[in-house]
């Protein structure tokens, strides 16, 4: 097939292919490139105005600076927001594991046919959006006197981590051969003992995936955090940066973009390693 094409057409095909890839890469990374440039530019280089055609905003026209980073780490609550996020993230990961690991195993092994139906139902709850639930939750949170407390997020975030992680773990447990537990049970282990001693050690990759996803989902969450947290000291990073780094009408774009960049890139890198498993979670049943 390919040999039938003339060299000219083959070269043309390669050029079109590379150009397509480059176009999509440019589109995908442009905002991140822009964050990098903005984070390190001096204000005199940053606030020139786009009407000045002679001033190329893509380049450093004056030497770069670390001032914006100094402001971000020294004069803002960015580190506090990171700490808050990490706190909520770790507690939510713990709760998620406690609920989703037994549930995932149960659906994979112990519940048979109705478990399959139920698992689809559980996955469906992932579709109930935060933008529908934040109104009833705001009632619930004020009833429980949790307004403006990180514990409100700890209470609510598992509503999106548990369904998805249960689903992922169920798929993972199903992929393990049944002989794993059965041989241990032949040797006199109880089912629970077999899970603890044989299944869980083999499931470390699956558990790690779940930890990463629960953590990234928590870091990405915006709507609930915006609704329930009002004091600046208690904000999570996804809300603190857009809401509290903007002082009045003045945007500190250098520090803002630095905050976006420093938060986004590590998550994006880690996330990418696990993405295929995440996508597999969405497409279970659709590939056969």
């Amino acid at each position, binding site marked *: 097939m390919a040999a039938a094409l003339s060299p000219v057409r083959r070269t043309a095909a390669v050029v079109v292919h590379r150009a397509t890839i480059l176009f*999509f890469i440019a589109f995908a990374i442009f905002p991140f490139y822009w964050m990098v440039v903005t984070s390190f530019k001096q204000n005199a280089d940053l606030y020139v105005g786009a009407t000045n055609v002679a001033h190329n*905003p893509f380049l450093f026209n004056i030497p770069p600076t670390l001032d914006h980073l100094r402001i971000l780490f020294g004069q803002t609550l960015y580190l506090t927001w990171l700490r808050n996020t990490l706190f909520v993230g770790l507690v939510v990961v713990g709760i998620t594991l406690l609920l989703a690991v037994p*549930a995932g195993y149960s659906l994979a092994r112990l519940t048979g046919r109705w478990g399959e139906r139920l698992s689809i139902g559980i996955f469906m709850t992932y579709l109930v959006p935060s*933008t*529908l639930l934040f109104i009833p939750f705001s009632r619930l949170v004020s009833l429980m006197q949790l307004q403006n407390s990180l514990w409100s997020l700890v209470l609510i975030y598992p509503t999106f981590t548990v369904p998805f992680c249960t689903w992922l773990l169920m798929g993972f447990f199903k992929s393990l051969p049944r002989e794993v537990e059965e041989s241990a049970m032949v040797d006199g282990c109880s*089912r629970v003992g077999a899970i603890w001693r044989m299944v869980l050690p083999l499931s470390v990759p699956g558990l790690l995936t779940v930890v990463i996803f629960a953590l990234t989902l928590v870091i990405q969450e915006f*709507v609930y955090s915006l609704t329930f947290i009002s004091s600046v000291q208690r904000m999570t990073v996804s809300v603190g940066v857009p809401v509290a780094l903007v002082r009045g009408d003045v945007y500190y774009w250098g520090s803002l973009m630095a905050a976006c960049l420093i938060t*986004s890139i590590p998550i994006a890198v880690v996330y990418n390693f696990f993405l295929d498993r995440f996508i*597999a979670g969405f497409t279970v*049943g659709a590939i056969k």
Partner: protein
Amino acid sequence: MTSTTAVSVAPTLHAGETIRRSDRRLGIVMLAPALLYIALLVAVPFLLALFLSLTNSSAGSLEFSFVGLQNFENVIASPVFRRALRNTFVFTFVSQLAVIVLGNVLARALMKSFHGKAIARFLILLPWAAPISLATLGWLWIFDSTFSVINWLLKVAGWLGPGQWYYWLGDPTLGMVAVIMIHVWRMLPFSTVILLAGLTSIPNEVREASAIDGAGLFSRIFRIEIPMMKPLLTVAVLFGVVFTFTDMSVVYLLTRGGPYNSTHVLASLAFQEGVLGGDVGRGAAVAIFLVPVLVVLAIFMLRTSRRAEVV
């Protein structure tokens, strides 16, 4: 528990067969905490949302009385709501159409092997992994009224003449373009990866056979590949629609629904009315309008998963 019964039953046990009674009991015990949590914190709040939409409850007090369908009547009568309803559909439809077309092109390009493919894939996937609120902030700066780099490029390219200027977020049409652009940017990686999985699942023999039978590129794509990857195409579209349809972060951070409430979507309007405005009943009523579409999508999804199981 009792290992002797396990020995006798275990070897014959596989999917669909009867499960030992002690195992079934253990299964229920292990499932109960997660189910209870989901029932209490997803199902009950969902019902509470329906309930609140029928009341005049407000953020300040816990007292309320029933007002029937009054909230819905008020909401439907409001032009801001009707605009938000229309916007929600326009944003979702246009951005998902673009995502599916571009996603197919991109997935096809990523099928071929080339130097630096792993890096290209990593870079293309970045938008989906970054926190949406922070990514939107990056776009806010790109669309800035004075410093927009897009305007600079258009100026240099000669598209914008002297005195001409685009106020991206100050103009209803341009504001909508900006919102759609961010949704496309964010959802494209997600759909591409799913479509790529669909393309790779088509056996090579099928492609070779179609080439031998003389099928051209277009008939191969539209008659063979797209029908074969239909389940995955459905998954990509359904989730893309859910994520875009229910999102409020992009609109809230980019335009706050402005200018003149022209770019609101249902979710951002519900937030404005129910949380910022304190009119919980009215906010709930706005958000309830998300439900019919979600129900339709859920039914589609169940059908897809069932069909895939049967085949």
